């Protein structure tokens, strides 16, 4: 409730053109928007570009934001659509390139604070992370977006339906199919 009031107040200020208020909104949502883009696109650089662009688009189009919708849903919608656009523009050989390099994720994860895990366990967990991400990337985009929103961003079916502007039934079906597809890559591990 407090959070919603905070966001509402800031949106009003932004709609009047106050950029400083927007910095606080970016701070608030940057982790979630970045994570969404990363899971959709599969590498850090593209994720950063897409997340930045999503925030810029949201700012530029702030006047079209309808408060009947949660602001976060509106923002995730922009980020999801942008990520899908970028996926479509990617050339097939780009995929190949990423599969081979694969260092992006490694450097990323090695930056995470080390916990008590032994080096072997850490390597194993890194490999698992990589495997999960690659499996997500093999999903067709319509399944990928619902899976990412549901499991990476921890959103409810209702919110996902709002973000993607799809009936709940369709969201469910896509999640089911996405889960089945992922099972083929991850279920045997």
């Amino acid at each position, binding site marked *: 409730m407090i959070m919603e009031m905070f966001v509402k107040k800031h949106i009003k200020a932004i709609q*009047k*053109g*106050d*950029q*400083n208020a*927007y*910095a606080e909104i*970016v*701070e608030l949502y*940057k*982790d979630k928007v*970045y*994570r969404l883009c*990363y*899971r959709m696109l599969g590498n850090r650089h593209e*994720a*950063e570009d897409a*997340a*930045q662009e999503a*925030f*810029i688009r949201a*700012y*530029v189009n702030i006047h079209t934001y309808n408060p009947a919708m949660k602001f976060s849903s509106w923002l995730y919608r922009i980020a999801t659509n942008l990520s899908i656009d970028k996926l479509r523009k990617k050339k097939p050989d780009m995929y190949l390139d990423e599969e081979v390099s694969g260092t992006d994720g490694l450097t*990323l*994860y090695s930056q*995470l604070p080390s916990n008590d895990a032994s080096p072997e366990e850490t390597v194993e967990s890194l490999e*698992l*992370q990589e*495997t*999960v*991400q690659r499996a*997500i990337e093999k999903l067709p985009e319509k399944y990928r977006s619902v*899976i990412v929103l549901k*499991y*990476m961003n921890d959103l409810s*079916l209702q919110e996902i339906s709002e973000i993607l502007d799809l009936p709940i039934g369709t969201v*469910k079906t896509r*999640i*089911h199919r996405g*889960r*089945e597809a*992922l*099972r083929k890559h*991850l*279920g*045997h*591990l």
Partner: protein
Amino acid sequence: MKCPDQIIEWMHDYLDGDIAPDDEKRLREHLQHCSACSQHFNSLKKTVAFIQYASPLAPPADFTANVMAKLPKEKQRVRAGRWLKNHPVLTAASLFAALTVGSLFTTWNKEQQFSVSTRENVIIHDHTVIVPKGETVDGDIVVRNGSIKIEGKVNGDVTVIHGEKYLASAGQVTGDVEEINEMFDWIWYNIKNAVKAMLE
């Protein structure tokens, strides 16, 4: 044992946390007896655990700054408004200055007449004030629209507005000597006096 047609759908409904109690009961019963379905269900649960396990990622530290740098410039009006709100003292001061400058602009143009602030111990000759040799003026002298020639001594400040000052080698002024010939000097002089008056 024949598997129910909707068995896979029940599994997913269960994983969505959105299964009817009757369906859940049927699902459980079937899983107990069917190893193939039970395996399918377990691999689905494992898959969900894996994707949920994917660790949190954070964008680079300068992310917000980068976004802000790329935004289109905000409206001047808002920026000015915020500046005024954040600097109330400066705002008041500049408003004061603006009003003062405005009124001084008029006085500068209006006051064209020769005047001098003191007539004691000075000779006034054709718009020139002379402090003769051997004479001492106690106090400040302000000359407007005229000049001053100092051969004697002034115990105070000398200010010439719209004029010139001549200080003879023997002349002496204990305070400041100032010549004001430009509007900005005039404005500055007035602001300085106002501030001085405020501080005193």
